[in-house]
């Protein structure tokens, strides 16, 4: 799917790329999605690039770095049965536990910053997985997660700069997916 990125989103990414590079947890793994666009990516700064992913255990033990590895594998078309199983399990967890997600997300004294960054990554993963597999269930759960106010990064805050960029990118991509499907 070819995606034309609006100029203001490109500018937002370019203006904040230094911050995005610094925030190793939120690189933009989206070269594949933006055909022909001059969008910088950060795949080369991934600390875990190429890391072998162990089988999914449970959501409580999820590490942000694991989401990064998953996103990298999907962006580079390297996903396999382990990746697919991870994505399916993450989908199910968030769907089945949707009503108690907030309580579970803040377990073990996780900070709001950590929760927002993790969930921005998870939403990005789901959207990117949709682009890879065409499975609308992942857009469905991404939509539901983006409805949750406690997941939204505070816009304009330097703490959430990378999350804000990714959040806006995700909003744009979902709109684009739905518009394209409706006009098919």
């Amino acid at each position, binding site marked *: 799917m070819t995606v034309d990125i609006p100029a203001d989103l490109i500018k937002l990414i370019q203006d904040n790329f230094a911050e995005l590079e610094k925030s190793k947890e939120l690189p933009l793994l989206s070269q594949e999605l933006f055909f022909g666009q001059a969008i910088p990516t950060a795949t080369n700064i991934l600390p875990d690039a190429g890391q072998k992913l162990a089988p999914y255990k449970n959501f409580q033990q999820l590490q942000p770095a694991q989401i990064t590895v998953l996103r990298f594998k999907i962006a580079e078309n390297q996903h396999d049965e382990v990746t697919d199983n991870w994505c399916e399990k993450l989908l199910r967890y968030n769907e089945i536990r949707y*009503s108690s997600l907030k309580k579970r997300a803040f377990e073990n004294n996780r900070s709001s910053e950590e929760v927002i960054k993790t969930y921005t990554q998870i939403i990005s993963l789901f959207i990117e997985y949709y682009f890879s597999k065409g499975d609308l269930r992942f857009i469905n759960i991404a939509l539901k997660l983006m409805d949750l106010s406690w997941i939204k990064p505070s816009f304009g805050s330097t703490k959430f700069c990378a999350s804000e960029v990714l959040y806006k990118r995700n909003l744009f991509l979902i709109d684009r997916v739905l518009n394209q*499907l409706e006009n098919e």
Partner: protein
Amino acid sequence: MNKSIIVFCPNPYSIYTNSVCELLQQKGYSIDTIIVRKFTLNRFFNEFSRDGVRLLKKIWTKLFLKEKAYTVNENNVLAFRKDHGLTIKNIKAFQAGGTKLVYCGSLNDQIVEDTLRQKKEKLIVFTGGGIVRKNILDLAGDGIINCHMGILPKYKGMDLPEWCILEGEIDQLGITLHFMDTGIDTGDILKTIKVPIGNNTDIKTLRSTFEPVMINAMVETVEACLAGTAKPSPQPASENRQYFIVHPRLYSLINKKIQKSS
């Protein structure tokens, strides 16, 4: 010994429950017991946490509007009821024919266990009311028949007609009669019936055409089970996939796809 027919029911006004029970009665079967869930705050909060605002719409439609929620349509449950002379709108009416009513907070409560233990030979008809757990499944006698709004084994979970449309598999719209087990929509299959998209122009009217098919299919399956002619078969292995409640933003896409196909 005649088997007792026991019906699990989500609320006393369920058009589906009342129609299945009355149609069975018309065919000469007697309903031994209807186990019906009570309206409690606890139930409301549990279902609200699962369904959100959708629950309020469901309550309004099913408990207040009831038949008024339906538009004039020759393929919906109102037309079906009229054609078959079905008039009962509240399960209390079945008491006049000797049916016992048992009220419970959850279908997994002790009172349900105690009721089931009283009947040695039984067949349970599930017309709604929530998840049934192992303690009840273990007491189910011949089994608990459910009518699932999707073709199994692929379409497991919720909002299956919607997902069928989204997946572009209009020809896979349909229902499955199956025995319930501890898994989600994994029990042995009794019958599968496809439902054509017809001239429906949106998901609401399409869904309304499912109901008469479900009522008929449930009654026929109960008859077959009681006659010993039902042939349940284990579900074939399939992708471990589950579908969930559709986000409201996807409904515009669903309705466009229905209009293109009908």
